[in-house]
C-alpha cells in the first residue's frame, strides 16, 4: 500500500466528478486528496487524485476510469519524476509580542507568505508538497491554529512528458 497520484483528463461536464469518485468509493477506497480545475485544453478539466492502495487495485481502478466515456486520459504520476504541490492557508493565533515574531520567522523559513494581519491572528499561505505543509502545521500548532485549509495535491510530470489528450 502506497500513495498514488493520478492525473485524470476529463470532459468538463456535469456528473463527471461523481462518476470518477464512485469508482473509488465502490471499492472501499478513501480519496486522500482531490483537486479539479480547467486546464490547457478547451472543454476539459484535469483532476488530480491521491489514493493509498496496492498497485494492482489502483491499476484496476485506472482501467475502469479509462472506460468512462467522459474520461480522456488517466495516468499514474507516481512512477515518474514529477512536481507535486499543495497550497494551505493557516490562520494562527498571534498576539502582539514575541509569538508573533516567532511565527513570522517560521513563515520565512518555509517561504510562506503572510496574507492577512489581524489584531490577534495572522493568515499564512504556504505552498509545497504534502510533507512540507504537514511540517509547517506541526510547528505552528503550539501557537494555536484557529483554522487550517488546504487544497488537494496537483501534480505534473517533469521534463517534456505530458498527460494530455494527445492531439
Amino acid at each position, binding site marked *: 500500500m502506497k500513495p498514488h497520484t493520478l492525473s485524470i483528463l476529463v470532459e468538463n461536464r456535469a456528473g463527471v466528478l461523481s462518476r470518477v469518485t*464512485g469508482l473509488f468509493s465502490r471499492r472501499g477506497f478513501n480519496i486522500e486528496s482531490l483537486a479539479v480545475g480547467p486546464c490547457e485544453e478547451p472543454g476539459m478539466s484535469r483532476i488530480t487524485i491521491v489514493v493509498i492502495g496496492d498497485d494492482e487495485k489502483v491499476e484496476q481502478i485506472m482501467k475502469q476510469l*479509462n472506460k468512462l466515456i467522459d*474520461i480522456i486520459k488517466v495516468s499514474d504520476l507516481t512512477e515518474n519524476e514529477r512536481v507535486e504541490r499543495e497550497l494551505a492557508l493557516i490562520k494562527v493565533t498571534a498576539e502582539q509580542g514575541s509569538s508573533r515574531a516567532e511565527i513570522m520567522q517560521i513563515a520565512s523559513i518555509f517561504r510562506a507568505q503572510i496574507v492577512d494581519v489581524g489584531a490577534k491572528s495572522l493568515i499564512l499561505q504556504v505552498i509545497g508538497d504534502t510533507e512540507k505543509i504537514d511540517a509547517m502545521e506541526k510547528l505552528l500548532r503550539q501557537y494555536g491554529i484557529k483554522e487550517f485549509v488546504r487544497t488537494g495535491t496537483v501534480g505534473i510530470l517533469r521534463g517534456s512528458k505530458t498527460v494530455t489528450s494527445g492531439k
Partner: protein
Amino acid sequence: MKTGAKILVESLQREGVETIFGYPGGQILPVYDELYDSSLRHILVRHEQAAAHAADGYARASGRVGVCLATSGPGACNLVTGIATAYMDSVPIVAITGQVPTTMLGNDAFQESDITGITMPVTKHSYLVKKTDEISSVVQEAFYVAGTGRPGPVLIDLPKDTQTGTARDSPRLDKVVLRGYNPTYKGHTRQIDKVIALILEAERPLIYAGGGVISSNASEELIALATQLGIPVTTTLMGLGCIPCDNPLNLGMLGMHGTEYANFAVTESDLLIAIGARFDDRVTGKIDTFAPHAKIVHIDIDPAEIGKNKRVDVPIVGDVKAVLNDMLNSIKKKGIHDAWRKKIQYWREHHPLKYPDDGKLHPQYILQRMNELLKGDATIVSEVGQNQMWTAQYFGFRRPRSWITSGGLGTMGYGFPAAIGAHFARPDLPVFDVAGDGSIQMNIQELGTVAQYKIPVKIAILNNMYLGMVRQWQELFFDHRYSYTELPSVDFVKIANAYGIDGIKVESADEVMPALKDALDCNGPFVMDFRIEREENVFPMVPAGAAINEMIGGHPR
C-alpha cells in the same frame, strides 16, 4: 421546429428502432402523446422492470440495441434491476426516463428521483438532457455507446420541459466522435502471432469461450479456428450456443455446474485460450487452482478485464471477430492434439451428465424432450436457479443467440419479460421461458402483456414448490435446514386462465411430450406447470471455494 417528444421518437426511428417496451406516467406524457399516432410500436408491459428485461431480451436475441421507456420517480426506479442485469451481462439497451422539468430539478418535486445518480454504477453511460436541441444528438450517441465496444446499458433522462420545448431538426451525424471513447477492435499482430506459436507448441490446448463470442457475432470464426487447430472448446453459461452442442469439439459448460469433463480439461490443459470471457468466480472456483498448469491467453475488447481476476500470459485487446479472423488468416499449419482429445473423450464417456432413470418426473427429462422437439429452432430463455442450470446442461444449444439468461446478476423474474423481448426480435422462432415456481412469480403480471398482444411465449414452470437452488444449498451446506425456501402450491393453470391464457398441469413423464407439443401448436402464449421431483438437485457441482475439478454429485474418479 418540432417538439422534443417528436424529435425523440423520430431519432429512435432513425436508429432503426421498431419496437419499444414501456409504461407511461406524468413526466413522460408528451412522449406518449407522440407515440399515439407514430409507426413506432410500443408494448405496454405491466411493470417497468419487465420493460427493461424485454428490451434486454430483444437485444440479446437480435444483436441490436433494445429500448425501454418509463416515467420519472417510481417508473425510473423500477427499471433499475433491469438496467443492472443488462450491465452485468454486457447487453446494449437504451433506457429512456421522464424527469421533472429542469426548473424543478433537485427540489424533491413530485415523482422526482435522481435516476442518473441511482444508475451511475450500473450504466455504461448516461445523459441528463437539459435542452430540447440536444435530444437528437444524445439519442444517436447513446445508441453508439450502448452498441459498440463492450456493449452495455445507456440511460437518457428527459426532463418534461425538454419534451415539450421545440427545436430545429438536426441531421444525423455520419460518425459519432467521442474524445474519451475509442474501443480497440483490431488485435495486436505480434500478440496474435505469439498466440499461434503457443497453440502449435501446446499439447493440451483448450478454448474457454464466453458471451463475448456471441456479442461479437463470431461463432463461425470460433468454430473454424477450433476445427482447424483441433482444439476442444468449453463455454461459459453466457457462451452456450456459440458452438453447436453436437460438435465433437464441444465440451459444454465449465464451472460450478459445468460438465466434469470440461472442468477436468481446464485443470489439465497446458494452454487456456479465453475468448470473450471474464474469469467469473462461478467459472473459476478457487482462483489459484484454476487452470494451474496452463499458460493463459485472454482475448477481450475490454482492457479492464485483462488480468482482473487471473494473471494472463498473452493478452489481446480487441474484438473477438476481428482477432479470430486475423488468427485464421495467419495459421498455416493444422493442429494435431490427438492424444489430448482422446483423453477428453475418455472423460466424456466415463463422466457424462446423469440423473436417475426411475420413470419419475425429472426436470432434466423435460429439457431433453424439449430439445428433441425443438431441435434448436427456438429461442430458449430461463429464469434463475436450478431451472436455469438444468436448461444449460440438458438443452442442446445449436446456435448463438438461441439462449438468453441472466448470468452476472442472476435476476429472478428476468426470463419471462426477456422472452417477450426475444419474441419481437425473432418472431419467426418459438420462444420458451424455462422457469421455477419462485422466479415466475417475480414477474407473473406479464401474463397480462402476453395476453393483450397475443405474444406466443411458452412458459415451462419446473415446479418444485421450493426456491430450489437455495434449498439445494441448505440441503448440502446448512444441514437440511430449509429456512424460508418452501413455497405453497399454486395453481398456475388457473392463473393463466384468468388472463385468458391456456395452460396444462403435468404430473408424469409420459405427459411431457404431449404437453410440449400442445404448447408449440398453440398460437398464443401457453403455461406448462410441470410438477417435478421436489428435491432434485443440480449436479455435478463445485462447492463454493473448491477447485473446479473437485465436484460433488458426479462420477467417482
